[in-house]
């Protein structure tokens, strides 16, 4: 059901004209245009809320994240570099980052110096440039590929992406050897990449 929703949902993928509209909105927001801000909200609040909810699993927390992300958009619109990628992709990155921060805070996991080397998320160090949203068709293919992954691979990947865990943390969570977890994540990523037509 949610696959269908994702396909039908206009905010799940931003068409090229949507991207231009986003950048135009952001330029107006940078001048303090609240109407443009409302338009951007209407286009992407669903995308932001859905990701925050998926990560945090609590509606109240997800709503807070939506509020934080849009407040950040409001305050940083003037500094946004359009050449870096799509506005919606930037907002998704902000959403994931803030939601995972909140998740970590909720767990109140003490950060120690010894952890700092390994605590880096599997995806935190991902290259943050040329951010682009996938097309609706690509998202559908990705969702299908995710669904077809063996449970063990999907679970490991989801822990890494949606909870921001390191390989070591995923391994600890699943009580599996680190090497096994690395292999599962790698295999999962290969299948997803293939689903997107990339080798």
């Amino acid at each position: 059901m949610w696959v269908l929703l994702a396909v039908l949902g206009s905010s799940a993928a931003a068409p090229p004209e949507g991207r231009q509209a986003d950048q135009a909105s952001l330029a107006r927001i940078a001048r303090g245009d609240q109407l443009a801000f409302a338009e951007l909200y209407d286009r992407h609040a669903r995308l932001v809320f859905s990701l925050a909810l998926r990560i945090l699993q609590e509606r109240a927390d997800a709503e807070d994240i939506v509020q934080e992300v849009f407040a950040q958009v409001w305050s940083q619109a003037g500094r946004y570099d359009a050449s870096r990628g799509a506005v919606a992709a930037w907002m998704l990155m902000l959403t994931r980052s803030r939601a995972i921060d909140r998740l970590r805070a909720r767990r109140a996991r003490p950060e120690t110096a010894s952890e700092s080397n390994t605590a880096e998320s599997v995806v935190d160090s991902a290259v943050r440039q040329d951010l682009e949203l996938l097309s609706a068709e690509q998202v559908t293919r990705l969702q299908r590929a995710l669904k077809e992954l063996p449970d063990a691979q999907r679970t490991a990947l989801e822990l890494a992406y949606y909870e921001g865990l390191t390989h070591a943390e995923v391994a600890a969570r699943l009580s599996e050897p680190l090497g096994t977890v690395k292999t599962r994540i790698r295999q999962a990523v290969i299948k997803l990449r293939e689903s997107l037509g990339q080798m």
Partner: protein
Amino acid sequence: MDVIRDDDRPELEPPILQGLGQAVPQVDPPLALRARVLESIAGKPAARPAAARPAVWQLATAASLALAAGLGLYTSQLRGRIGVLEDELRDTRARANAADQRVADAQRTAAGAQSSLAVLTAPDVARIDLAGQPPVAPQASARAFWSRSRGMVFTASNLPPLPAGSVYQLWVVTKEPAPLSAGLLTPDAQGGVNETFSTPPDIPQPVALAVTIEPAGGSPSPRGEKYLIGTL
């Protein structure tokens, strides 16, 4: 490229990263959240477009505006300053004029004193006491020091106030010819006089000094009533 590197700091390429963000079940946020978000930014200052690098013309325009504003302010300050300076200049000029006046007065006084001293210390100085004449000036009195070479110092006191349109005139009375006018007296409020007169060195030997009241401007010869008389 292997997505999981040996150093255990793997990366997910951007398409998968974005795709996983988009691939979640899509859920509509509550309607109330929209109002809350829009409200939350309404009171905050607008985003800062200036943080985006301004174009050269924007900088130039801003600089011109700043310069114009600065010049305007500067001009206004200058105008105010000039006004203050003009006031100061007027005040200074007035003070200078007053000072000049005092200097001139002082110089006149000094010159008068010097003249008086010269007369008083002249080897040929003679003293003449004058007495007030009843009934017009019974209280008045005067004294003169006369030197043929240096002139006359005349002091008087208690001269009665003059009727309008009249003056006191000092006469040097000689045997021949008619009395010679030494000059007009200008008494102060108390009827006092302290003046120096020059007299012709070739004046015939005086026999008396007299002060009469004459029409304004003085007379060529004494016609009015005598107020003071003194003989040598």
